[in-house]
């Protein structure tokens, strides 16, 4: 996802080649509609799309509007769309861009979800920066501020480095599908930024931040889980993953019950799987609105929802898609298996500390066997894996979750989701 789109080997010795660019042009001040311009430029295939745009600007049309600065994927200025996909212009090789084109022409557009100022330049202030401001993007220090530095556990800072890798290019904002239908959604970049502080043990307002983001109808529960931002990010920030962590801490650690049904939905879903092993859709919906128990469906919000969904429900019943019995009775897995599943719930949820393996930080073992990569494998991999010989994953002395007000110490206090080595 965030891989550099690598040039073909020997590209650096390759001779310049012709590439066709199709640029979307628009100047709102002109009063004219957007249009497409085509230019043919000449560059070595390993050179960047940004260099191609700049050559077109230099050779053919000085009025092409493009924003750039560092030209090495650090500054985040040159976010655009290449063949419909978000990219940093300076971080996209021409040969890769050509390979991804529909018709042999590299299509270049401004980013989405933000108004165009001119050609490839979008108004980051109007959307992106406003949303960043929305999440109070600075540390609210715990008091008293130590005379010298705060001393925090190393792992807790590693935990937030993933969000700190953000270069504010706006690629995730450009592609966010929730924002496409709900422009007020706080969005992936700003929410990832908020995790930067929610996850920081020096910050004093974890609960307040999370409560704010959970209660906002366009906050953490407005994310549709579409992975667009994960794919768009050139720096592997995994904004959606950060949003899920915000939800996890809000609901599990602070028991924040939001008015958007976010917590109820999660609780109802999890409870239904624990009770039945399989999902019971007819019960999930009313509980998400009315509360996580069998009585949830009788709560007023559930009734209101039922009423608004009647057209769908009636049609589904008429077509035999949903039978009344099917809706009233859950399907379950066999008793013995349900018992095993419930045992897993009890054991894992009973841990004093949640485990979270973040591959951004932990990385992969050397030479992992790839499942599903080369056709013809059998379902059971050869048992060559030394299933963690001698390595115990069980956390040794479990550190209790310290209360948020305590002094930072050497234990992973605020660090609820121990990243490396499963909390060794």
């Amino acid at each position, binding site marked *: 996802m965030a891989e550099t789109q690598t040039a073909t080997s020997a590209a650096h010795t390759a001779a310049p080649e012709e590439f066709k660019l199709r640029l979307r042009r628009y100047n709102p001040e002109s009063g004219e509609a957007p249009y497409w311009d085509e230019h043919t430029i000449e560059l070595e295939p390993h050179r960047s799309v940004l260099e191609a745009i700049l050559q077109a600007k230099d050779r053919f049309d000085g009025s092409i509007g493009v924003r750039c600065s560092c030209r090495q994927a650090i500054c985040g200025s040159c976010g655009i769309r290449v063949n419909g996909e978000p990219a940093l212009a300076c971080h996209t090789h021409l040969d890769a861009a050509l390979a991804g084109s529909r018709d042999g022409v590299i299509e270049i557009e401004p980013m989405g979800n933000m108004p165009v100022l001119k050609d490839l330049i979008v108004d980051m202030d109007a959307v992106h920066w406003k949303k960043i401001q929305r999440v109070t993007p600075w540390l609210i220090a715990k008091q008293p501020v130590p005379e010298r530095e705060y001393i925090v556990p190393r792992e807790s800072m590693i935990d937030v480095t993933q969000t700190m890798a953000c270069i504010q290019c706006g690629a995730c904002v450009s592609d966010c599908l929730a924002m496409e239908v709900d422009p007020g959604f706080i969005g992936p970049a700003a929410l990832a930024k908020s995790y930067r502080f929610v996850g920081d043990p020096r910050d004093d307002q974890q609960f307040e931040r999370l409560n704010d983001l959970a209660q906002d109808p366009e906050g953490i529960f*407005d994310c*549709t889980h579409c992975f667009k931002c994960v794919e768009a990010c050139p720096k592997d920030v995994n904004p959606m993953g950060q949003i899920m962590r915000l939800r996890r801490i809000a609901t599990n650690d602070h028991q924040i019950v939001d008015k958007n049904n976010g917590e109820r939905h999660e609780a109802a879903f999890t409870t239904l799987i624990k009770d039945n092993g399989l*999902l019971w859709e007819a019960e999930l919906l009313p509980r998400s609105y009315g509360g996580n128990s069998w009585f949830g469906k009788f709560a007023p919000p559930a009734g209101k929802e039922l009423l608004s969904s009647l057209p769908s429900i009636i049609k589904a019943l008429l077509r035999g898609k949903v039978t009344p019995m099917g809706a009233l009775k859950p399907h379950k*897995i066999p008793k013995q298996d349900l018992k095993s599943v419930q045992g897993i719930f009890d054991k894992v949820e009973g841990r004093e500390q949640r485990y979270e393996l973040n591959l951004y930080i932990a990385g992969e073992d050397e030479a992992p066997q790839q499942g599903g990569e080369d056709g013809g494998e059998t379902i*059971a991999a050869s048992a060559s894996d030394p299933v963690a010989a001698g390595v115990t994953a069980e956390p040794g002395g479990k550190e209790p979750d310290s209360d948020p007000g305590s002094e930072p110490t050497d234990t992973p206090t605020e660090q609820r989701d121990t990243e490396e080595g499963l909390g060794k």
Partner: protein
Amino acid sequence: MKVAYWPGCVSRGFTPELHGSMAQVAPLLDIELVELDRACCTGAGVIAEHNQELADTLNARTFALAQQVQGAELMMNICSTCQGAQSECQERLDANAEYRAHVNETLAGEGLSYEQGLTNKNFLWLLVEEIGLEELRSRVKRPLTNLKVGPFYGCYIVRPRDRLGIDAERPRDHYLHQVIEALGGTVIDYAGMRKCCGFPIITMNKEASLKQAGRHLGDAVDADADCLVTPCPLCHLNLDLQQPLAEKTVGRDLEMPVLHLPQLVGLALGLEPKELGMSRHVVRPTSVIDWSTSVVGATAPAGASGGW
């Protein structure tokens, strides 16, 4: 081929026609389904959101059960969301031996253990990669001539590309296109084909959710599609079951039939619409099948859809 078959929850709940049509289609493709009826829900990302280790352990249990199926070549699912949720857990389990051992310890009480390297493919991937488009084409009895099909991929089966093993050699994000063509149909490209159906936020932000469904359906209508096909039952819920509400939200008539992937395959392999449960959809698939004559591809004249 023999596969350890994970049907998921919704295919046995609100979209029973999906599970049913898969059962009809499997023998026609020489797929032997060994159902993983002891396994539990994948969590659809929601359990992972609640507790990552819990989701990983529950899915590791499913993987371990699949690995116990004698003679099965791989595990197959018919739900994109299951594929996405399982792939996410498997990525973590496969990447780190220490973590895998930790999860397996929880499973040990049941005598189960997940071994790294399971192959788990959605029916769509299996069609293209295991059965092959040529073989599929050779089995078509009733080509979908003149049928204009819009692929609806959704999210979980196309993103993130690395995790799902999508690259130039395995363009899994184009497989629906390839299958529609192999079945003799015409592919209709439209703006929303790889966007979110809106289902995950239907209880949190219903308007935004229905707007998503309504827009993509509207895009498909504007692109002149006869129907959509999807590998995901949750997308089907928002696109078909909720279509009456989506119409209200976006303020236009849509009437766009949405087929499950096995249904589209089944039609081309010669099965009857009713056998495939197509009468159970909220939006009647009359544009797909003229019920009176069962000629694929012909648009049914108004009123000729007796029995639906």
